[in-house]
């Protein structure tokens, strides 16, 4: 622990700290463009110069390790003058187009130029102009503004694992480019927009839309995957204009997946903004009164055991609680939140959570994926696993499922149940490797559980985890990776069939007469018998609304305060950013109104009371943003029998990453991604050589 002095402040810093980190620890701000604490050190912008005693010249603090007794000055005249000189060089070729630049107002270069810029230029030659590049439908480039910090290059190579950007040529002709003029194929590409310290990389759909100071900023939680990424929703008036990640080191660090960032233009299209009733085979606009009375008439007329409800992938826990309470009040045991039919035992959290926790990934040294494509089902989480692979040369990864390039060396062990069965053999090459690992992960996906033999797959994975030492007192390495934001919340609330109740398959097969779809669009509508009366409560005119007999317009995740539980069981609260459009209402209030009309009023009139009810249903909902690492219980065994494992192939969860839910299917940007982002130009990753 070297002792250093920063501007007269003495402090002790850990070994390996850089001068910049030491200065930050002392509370001194160092300007920087190329340095980023989650990327490797490049040291090419030179903005972070500081003076160090006994060193003849100013030193770039980002790349200089601290030494014992170092005396650092971050704010001397020499330092200020050096930084001014660096700034002058940076500005030689930087255009003065801040008034039309989307980065204006949140630009590092602009901010630092206030402190270190000259009021005039001494450079009379022509500025350098650089051709703009095609980075696809998400990232807009104005390359003349680029100051070549290479953060984007480093992010894509190091974090995203898709090394498609680089710096070509040299000297004044150096350019950041992908050379092939094809869209970036990373699911994390939007993050380079946040990383870019200038306006060279900006969001294409957000181009010339708004200024940062006009936006109302609301903290929220992302719903496009089950990671529970912390986001900030920027809105102006009644429009959500952009979504940015918030820093939460335990969940998403500071990254955000592209779908979560860019699918928001789907929130303005195909919206259900008024109730609809099907009359003579056609949906007709209706009033709330008419729609609610039709619903009530139908519910009152139905046999309680023939009423069912399915909760979709984007639901907040509040609406699921209200729907479950309504159904129970009506006397129906038929409710299910597992739209894909995944065999998940809601009885024990250890059997449906990502037990290791997302932070726990940072300790793992081996991973087996079963029936899951982590890159597309949870891009941010996959980046975290990838970091383990980068940091740890001995990291072993294997995947069973349709082959997918998951951005790091991963042995493809097969596509079908037989490949999984082979791993049950302790002599199998990969099983041996997994057993040799100290902290192995077994990650099972929803598609693996949605098969007819899902329980057997689950049991087999549990067995493999147990044999690999992933279920010991100090390491719980068995994980279920969800891909729906609502799922864990639904399971925590017990939104699964009560005794004698029908599950999704049972309800879809005609087990009910009245089916309440709460944002459930991923079930097979064609399989529903035509005489089933469908009440669709949701926010988009998608598959469910097309089949509905009555549509009750609800709110999207940006339009209601909501509770979401992510795949590791972390309960997080989202705030309302804007109000629902037209006559649409917050979902739980719709259910509360219906409950009163059927004379089974729900015992809560405001969201606080509802949340208290949720806390009573499951204590998880009483403790926001906490996650407990569950030690494996002794004697816990899943219900399935691994002997029943069939040889069927595992299937992919989505046809395309970009369109997986009603919002992203309504998004023109996502539609453009599907057509424009070609299959990766990269070859399949180098398979880890078998040792």
């Amino acid at each position, binding site marked *: 622990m070297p002792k250093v002095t920063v501007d007269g402040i003495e402090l002790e810093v850990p070994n390996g700290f850089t001068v910049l980190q030491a200065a930050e620890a002392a509370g001194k701000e160092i300007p920087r463009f190329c340095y980023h604490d989650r990327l490797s050190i490049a040291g090419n912008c030179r903005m972070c110069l500081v003076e160090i005693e006994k060193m003849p010249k100013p030193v770039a603090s980002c790349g200089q390790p601290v030494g014992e007794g170092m005396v650092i000055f971050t704010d001397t005249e020499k330092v200020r003058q050096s930084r001014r000189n660096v700034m002058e060089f940076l500005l030689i070729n930087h255009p003065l187009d801040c008034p039309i630049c989307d980065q204006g107002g949140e630009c590092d270069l602009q901010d630092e130029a206030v402190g270190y810029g000259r009021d005039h230029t001494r450079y009379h030659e022509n500025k350098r102009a650089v051709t703009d590049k095609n980075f696809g439908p998400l990232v807009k480039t104005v390359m003349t503004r680029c100051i070549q910090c290479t953060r984007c290059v480093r992010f894509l190579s190091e974090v995203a694992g898709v*090394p*498609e*950007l*680089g710096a070509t040529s040299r000297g004044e002709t150096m350019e950041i480019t992908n*050379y*092939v003029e094809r869209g970036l194929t990373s699911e994390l590409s939007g993050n380079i927009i946040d990383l870019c310290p200038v306006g060279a990389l900006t969001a294409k759909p957000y181009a010339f839309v708004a200024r940062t100071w006009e936006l109302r900023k609301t903290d929220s939680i992302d719903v496009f995957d089950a990671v529970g990424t912390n986001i900030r929703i920027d809105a102006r008036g009644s429009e959500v204009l952009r979504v940015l990640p918030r820093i939460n080191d335990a969940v998403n660090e500071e990254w955000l997946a592209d779908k979560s960032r860019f699918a928001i233009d789907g929130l303005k299209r195909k919206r259900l903004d008024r109730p609809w009733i099907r009359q003579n085979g056609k949906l007709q606009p209706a009033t709330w009164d008419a729609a609610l009375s039709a619903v009530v008439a139908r519910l009152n007329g139905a046999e309680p055991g023939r009423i069912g409800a399915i909760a979709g992938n984007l639901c907040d826990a509040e609406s699921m609680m209200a729907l479950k309470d309504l159904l129970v009040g009506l006397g129906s045991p038929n409710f299910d939140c597992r739209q894909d039919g995944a065999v998940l035992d809601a009885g024990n959290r250890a059997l449906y959570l990502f037990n290791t926790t997302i932070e726990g990934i940072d300790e793992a040294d081996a991973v087996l994926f079963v029936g899951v494509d982590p890159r597309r089902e949870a891009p941010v989480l996959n980046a975290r696993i990838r970091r383990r692979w980068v940091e740890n040369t001995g990291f072993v990864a294997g995947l069973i499922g349709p082959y997918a390039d998951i951005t790091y060396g991963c042995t493809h062990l097969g596509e079908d149940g037989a490949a999984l069965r082979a791993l049950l053999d302790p002599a199998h090459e990969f099983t041996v490797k997994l057993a040799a690992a100290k902290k192995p992960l077994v990650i099972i996906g929803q598609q693996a559980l949605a098969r007819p033999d899902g329980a057997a797959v689950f049991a087999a994975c549990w067995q493999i985890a147990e044999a690999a030492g992933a279920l010991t007192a100090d390491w719980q390495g068995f994980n279920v990776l969800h891909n729906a934001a609502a799922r864990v919340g639904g399971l925590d609330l017990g939104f699964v069939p009560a005794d004698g109740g029908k599950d999704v398959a049972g309800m879809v097969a005609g087990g009910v007469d009245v089916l309440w779809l709460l944002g459930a669009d991923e079930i097979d509508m064609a399989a529903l018998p035509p005489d089933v009366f469908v009440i669709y409560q949701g926010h988009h005119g998608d598959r469910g609304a097309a089949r509905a007999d009555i549509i009750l317009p609800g709110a999207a995740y940006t339009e209601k305060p909501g509770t979401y539980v992510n795949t590791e069981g972390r309960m997080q609260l989202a705030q309302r950013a804007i109000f629902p459009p037209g006559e649409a209402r917050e979902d739980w209030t719709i259910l509360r109104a219906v409950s009163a009309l059927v004379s089974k009023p729900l015992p809560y009139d405001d969201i606080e009371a509802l949340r208290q009810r949720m806390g009573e249903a499951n204590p998880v909902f009483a403790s926001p943003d906490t996650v407990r690492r569950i030690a494996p219980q002794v004697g816990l065994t899943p219900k399935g029998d691994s002997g029943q494992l069939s040889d069927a192939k595992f299937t992919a969860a989505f046809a395309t990453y970009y369109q997986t839910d009603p919002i992203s299917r309504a998004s023109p940007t996502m539609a453009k991604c599907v057509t424009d982002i070609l299959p990766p130009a*990269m070859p399949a990753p180098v398979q880890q050589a078998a040792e």
Partner: protein
Amino acid sequence: MNDMTTETFSFDDVSEAKIPGIIAKYPAGRQASAVMPLLDLVQRQMARLTDHAWVPRAAMDVVADRLAMPRMRVYEVATFYTMFHLKPVQKFHLQVCTTTPCWLRGSDAVLDACRHAVATHGDMFSMEELECVGACVNAPVLVINDDYYEDLDGARTEALLEAFRRGDAPKPGSTIGRQNSAPEGGRTTLFADVTKHDTGADS
């Protein structure tokens, strides 16, 4: 086979024979270090087969895949070095050094001669100016493909290029007959018989 219009590239047998030897020069797992020799091999194969020494993008992809490295990293290397031609050059690629020593010794005349050759026989000659090629002692210098032609002036350059055009293979090196970088007109020092000098090693 490869020609200037193809979008594909593959190493031919002559090149293939050399690849294992090149890759073997680098430690296991560091085979990406062979990127520059392989790009050079590509350029030489293109010259051999098509008379145009250049590196098509398809070839960069082939090199990247062969060395299991990201394609972008190969593009970076290939664009960084001006010695890799990213567009086709002609059979005789004239590289004129115009840095100060060559310029003082008359590289302008060499340049004019080369420009004339390219203007009249653009199907055989292409040219570019280079920064110092490290042969200042024999300035001015003209590099044609792999060979240095030194001590040039306008007339000798024209004669040299005419010889190439005829299909001769002029001898590389000084065009005024001096040996390597020895002084013009023979040596000016070290006349004594150094063989009799007692080094003290044998006594």
